[in-house]
Each structure stands twice: as C-alpha cells, then as structure tokens.
C-alpha cells in the first residue's frame, strides 16, 4: 500500500528527487550507486530524450524515486536534452511531476565551472542538496574543499560523495532523508514555491561567475590544479600526427573485435535457433502456424537477434571510450577534417555507431546541438555500412569474387572488394553531407565549445549497466517492432498459398511474389531479376533477411551457413557478374530498412526527412546500380 508522504500535490506515489549536473561530473555513476539495477530507461513523450528513473529506499525507510536528468552547463537549454532538464526542474513538463528536491552533482575537482549551475538551481526556490562528487580525486590532487564553509556560502546542505565507493553515498542518503523530512513537515507544495529563475543575460552570468570566485576563495583552501596525468596523456593523444594514428588504430581494433569477438556467440545463437527450428519442424504438423513460427518468427526475428553480440561489442568499446573521456578527444581530433564537409566533430560518434546499426547511430546524434548539423549527420548515417549488410556482402562476394591475391600477394581480392564497399559508403556519405550542407542545410557549423574531461578509468559496473540497458532496448525492439514487421512480411510471402500441383516455389504465388513480378520491369534496367525484387520486399524490415529470402525463392530448405554456401554456388550459376555487382552496389546505398526510417522520423519529429531519405537513397542506389550494371556489362561484353 502506498504510504502518505505528506506531499499535497501527489499524496500517493513516493517522493522524487532529480539529479542535475554538468556533463562528466559523475552524475550517472551516482545514479547507479543510488539505484543499482533498479532503474528503467524510457523516452520523454514527444522528444527522444532518455528518461532514466530509479528507486531506492533511504536509511529512514522512505521509498524515493530518483530521476537522472541530462547533463547541462546551464538552464538555458541549447539541445533537446537540456530542454528536458530545464522543463523538469521548472515544472513545465506535463508528464513529469516537479521533484520534491534537487540533488545538484558537482565534480569537486572542477568547482569553478560546476558551481555556476548550482547558483542557477538555487534560484528555483526548491530544496537543493549539493553532492560534492569525486571527493577522493579532489583530495588526492590536494584540493581542500571545506564542505561546511561551502554550505554556509551557498545556503544549502553540502555532502561529499564518492559515487564509486560503497560507503561513498551514505552522507547523501542521510541528507536526502533530512531534506525530505523538512519538506514534509513544512507541508511545502513544490508547485507553488516561488521561482526566481529567469534566463540569465551575459551580465547575470558574469555576476554568477564573480559569486563563484568569492565562494571559492572562502571555501577552497588550496586552489585546484589541472589534472597532471591527463595533461601528459593528452600531449601524446592530442598530438596531431600521433593522435590521429592512435585514433585510427583504435578504430581498426574495434572493428576487428566486432567481427572476431562476436563470431562465437553469433554461431551459438545461430545454432540455438536452428535447433529450435528443427525441433518445431519435427514436432509440429505442416501448416500456416508452423510456417509462421519457423519462417516468420524464428527466421525473421532470429536474423535480427543474431546481431546482438556485434552490437554489444561495439557498444562495449563506445562505452569504454566514452567513460574514459576519450570520445571528446576523438571529436577534437576530427573536428577540422569533418568540418571540411560541413560536419561537426561530434558527428564522429553517431557515424561510428552506424557501422553496427544505423538505429543507435541516429539516436547518438542527439549530442549534436545544432539541428542542421544533426540532420546532416542523421541523413548520411545509413550510408555507413551497418552489420546487417555484411551477410549480403559476404554471400555475393563468396559467389562471384574469385579467391585471388592482388597487390603483390598482400591482399586477397574478396577482402579488397569488401573494403571497397565500405569505402564507397563512407565517401558517398561525406559527399552527400558536403552537398546537403551547401544546399538545404546551410549555415556555419555549431560552435565546438566542449570540455575535455580528465581521463578516468571506466568502472566495470557502469559499463555493464550501460551494456545491459542497450541489450534490453535492442531485444525489446526485436520483440515488438521487428516482430510485428516480420509477421506482416511472412504473411505477404505466404498468402495466397500455392495452388494444388504447383511447380514453382510457393512464394511465386504470394503477394510478395506478385510485388516482385510487378517490380521486375522497373528493376530490369539495373540487372535485377524478379527473385531479387522479391528479396528487396522483406529486406525492408531488415536488410540481412534478403539472404534468407533469396534462399527461399531459390527453393532451398536448409538454413544458416549451410544454406549460404550452397546458395552462393546457385547464385554463381543463375546470376551474371554484372547483376551481382549491381546488387552489391544497390546494398551500399539501399535505404530499405524500416527501422532506420522510423527512428529518423522519431528523432527529427518529421515525416519530411525520412521521406527524403527514402527517395534520395533509392534514386542514388538505382543510379549507381544502373551505372555499375551497364559499365560491367560493356566491359564483359554481354
């Protein structure tokens, strides 16, 4: 039974506190320390800003809800994320109750920059607790922060915390109890508390700054010094030549790991799915239900789930690079070069993620504040070859590209072709960004103005919690959106059923087959036959499904690698080389992935951009395939 906490606006639910702070202040680590795994991540309605909420029981026995708000330097919101932070603490969001208390998290080693936000929060007229985080680091750097003095100067309770130590948050927990107790006893209705905040002018900001200097002079015994180790590491990692070389090596290792580390788990998933499919095959009578389960659900959803290991390895790297503070350096190193095509240095992370899957990549573009910069990044994200295209590439390469050593025996021809396909995607993406930024998305780039945080060893606990959240989100999506799409596509490919005594594969008579035949004349100029046209239809749901569909169409019954090998042989016989090359080219640009288009719609809150993306990339794919097919045909003399 919910107990009465004495808060007039919401007598039911538990009291809530909000965590607010600068980026890189250890806010998320503190959130994890408070809530452990009892957290859930969702989206705020209307915007795709992550809403992280957790629950903990205070020492006094109160159940407390805690919201982790996006990091910000100011309540003057500059990005969708920061708008959420501002609107929640100001009580402007209809879907989020005003928090009973705000915990302002500051990095004790960088008080000068962090305290200004605290002064802004104080103006809100709500109970604020200051969490002096990373006190251990401050002490080891010789920074003597007097918490009592700071508390007196700021007029709010100040508690030192070390989010990464077990006992490091006890003082904060006790203070939360006291603050909530006071709020309760005063019967404070947070909604009616007077708010003295208004958007600060440059003059106000200068005043805040002077106030911070005064407070620092009072409360900090020894001035903070820059992090020496960080400076030493940066003198190597940010050195133009060596820094870029190290970045490239890191990226190379990351891609190697995505493919090599993920292989075993992917084989296990593949084997597991085949086993389940085999069991159902053996134990169930033939019929639509069996077909739905084996072909539609296991075949369709399974073909997406199999990429979970690759996505997790990629995110493991991204999370470690992020937590260690290296990501900001990568943006620094690449900013000028990316600027050559009009992209922001921060576009690097979304584009990198897009090599695993464009969906998380497009979501990662949220860190780009400027809308035109963000749109440009999102529009070219699908051109970074996602892992779903890899099965298609490897199938066609195995079928048509001979195992020959080129370039003096150093490189195998198949590997070179694969590299060329990746490069074609990257180069055309950069070219499109260049054109977009000079036509529809004009305007100078958003300023960089970014903090280079001190290097820190990533905490396994935070990395694992981050990975867990990614895996959960991915599986939920596979179990809902992709599941639904797969059922639809299965139905299209299965009905109407083949008539009695049919000689052609069943799919020939289905709606998908009809669509294939209908599309055939359109695709003939680029060398596609109707079987490819059929494969493109379910390829809309997930690109790699095209492999499975080609297998079905060519009337093979096996699954997994066995099928791929024999399918490769079959394709080598039934397709001409120009058709194969044209098909590969199509997949470099191929926009047909509904998940990507729907996430673009959600992220940009617009139907225009996904529509433009679909038609733009389709025409590009068509044009490039047409050119490839014609040139290859002419060269071969067919």
């Amino acid at each position, binding site marked *: 039974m919910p107990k009465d906490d004495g808060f007039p606006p919401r007598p039911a639910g538990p009291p809530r506190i909000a965590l607010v702070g600068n980026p890189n202040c250890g806010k998320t680590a503190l959130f994890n320390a408070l809530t452990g795994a009892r957290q859930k991540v969702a989206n705020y309605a209307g915007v795709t800003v992550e809403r992280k909420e957790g629950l903990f029981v205070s020492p006094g026995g109160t159940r407390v809800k805690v919201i982790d708000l996006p990091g910000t330097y100011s309540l003057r919101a500059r990005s969708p994320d920061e708008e959420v932070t501002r609107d929640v603490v100001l009580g402007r969001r209809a879907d989020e109750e005003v928090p009973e208390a705000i915990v302002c998290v500051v990095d004790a080693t960088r008080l000068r920059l962090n305290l200004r936000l605290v002064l802004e929060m104080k103006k809100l007229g709500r109970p604020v607790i200051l969490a002096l985080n990373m006190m251990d680091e401050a002490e080891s750097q010789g920074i003597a922060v007097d918490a009592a003095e700071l508390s007196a100067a700021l007029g709010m309770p100040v508690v030192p915390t070390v989010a990464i130590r077990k006992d490091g948050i006890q003082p904060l927990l006790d203070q939360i109890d006291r603050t909530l107790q006071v709020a309760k006893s005063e019967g404070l209705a947070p909604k009616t508390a007077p708010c003295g905040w208004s958007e600060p002018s440059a003059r106000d900001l200068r005043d805040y700054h002077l106030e911070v200097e005064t407070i620092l002079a009072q409360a900090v015994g020894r001035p903070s010094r820059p992090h020496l180790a960080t400076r030493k590491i940066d003198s190597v990692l940010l050195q*133009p030549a060596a820094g870029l070389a190290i970045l490239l090596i890191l990226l190379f290792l990351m891609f190697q790991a995505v493919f090599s580390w993920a292989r075993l788990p992917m084989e296990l998933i593949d084997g597991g799915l085949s086993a389940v499919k085999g069991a159902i095959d053996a134990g169930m009578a033939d019929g639509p239900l069996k077909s739905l389960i084996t072909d539609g659900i296991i075949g369709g959803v399974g073909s997406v789930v199999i990429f979970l290991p690759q996505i997790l390895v990629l995110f493991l790297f991204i999370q470690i690079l992020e937590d260690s503070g290296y990501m900001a350096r990568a943006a*620094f190193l690449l900013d000028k070069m990316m600027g050559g095509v009009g992209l922001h240095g921060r576009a690097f992370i979304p584009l990198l993620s897009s090599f695993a899957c464009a969906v998380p990549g497009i979501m990662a573009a949220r860190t780009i504040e400027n809308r035109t910069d963000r749109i440009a990044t999102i529009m070219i994200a699908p051109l970074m070859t996602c892992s779903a295209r890899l099965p298609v590439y490897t199938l066609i390469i195995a079928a048509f590209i001979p195992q020959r050593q080129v370039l003096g025996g150093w490189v195998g021809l198949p590997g070179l072709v694969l590299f060329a396909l990746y490069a074609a995607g990257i180069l055309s993406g950069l070219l499109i960004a260049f054109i977009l930024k000079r036509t529809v998305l004009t305007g100078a780039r958003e300023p960089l*103005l*970014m903090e*280079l945080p001190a290097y820190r060893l990533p905490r396994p606990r935070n990395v694992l919690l981050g990975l867990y959240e990614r895996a959960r989100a991915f599986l939920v999506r596979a179990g809902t959106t992709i599941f639904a799409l797969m059922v639809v596509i299965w139905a299209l490919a299965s009905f109407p059923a083949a008539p009695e005594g049919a000689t052609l594969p069943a799919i020939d008579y289905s709606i998908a087959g009809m669509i294939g035949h209908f599309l055939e004349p359109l695709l003939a100029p680029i060398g596609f036959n109707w079987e490819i046209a059929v494969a493109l239809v379910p390829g809309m749901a997930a690109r790699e499904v095209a492999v499975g569909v080609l297998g079905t169409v060519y009337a093979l019954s096996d699954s997994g690698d066995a099928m791929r090998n024999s399918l490769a042989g079959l394709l080598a016989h039934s397709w001409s080389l120009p058709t194969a090359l044209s098909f590969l080219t199509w997949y470099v640009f191929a926009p047909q992935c509904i998940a990507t288009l729907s996430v673009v719609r959600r992220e940009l809150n617009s139907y225009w951009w996904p529509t433009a993306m679909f038609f733009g990339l389709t025409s590009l794919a068509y044009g490039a395939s047409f050119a490839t097919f014609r040139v290859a045909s002419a060269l071969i003399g067919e």
Partner: protein
Amino acid sequence: MRTETGLAMNAGVSLGALRKGAQAEIVALDETAATTTLDTGELERRLIEMGLVEGARIEILHEGFPRRDPIAVLVGDSTIALRRAEANAVMVRRLKD
C-alpha cells in the same frame, strides 16, 4: 605600465591568434570579432558558461589538425576545446608566448 597603454598595446590580440604554449589573461569578450551563426549574445553567454570570462587565466595546451584548429585551452581547472573561429571573440592580454 598604465592601463590605457596596456590595452592599446594588446588591442586586437584574440585567443584565436595564439599558438600552443601561449599563456594569457582574458580582458574582454567581443562577439563581433568572431564568425558565428548564433543569435546575438548567445556566443558570449556560452563562452562565459564555459569559464571564458574576463580575468580568467588561460593557456593553450593543444592544437588540432590541420591548420592548428581547433585548440584546447586550459581555463582555471578545466580544459575547453573550441575552434579558432569562436576563439576570435575572446580578447586577451598575453602573459607568455
């Protein structure tokens, strides 16, 4: 040295023109000296929010590539990366080259 002469001598020296290793003190913020698409007053406020405000001591720690852009600047206890285009809005008095 009198203040007026001091200012006159350093007139027009912006953070955007400094090289790696240079140390300076910020004397003024002048948005009009930078190229930006931000609304009037916005760049100035963002610079202040990142600690680039009058009186702050700065040191250029790192330079990007190519054309030594962007730059990483030590401001107080934080390191801030920014492009030279925006750094032009920060007027400084050189302390050490």
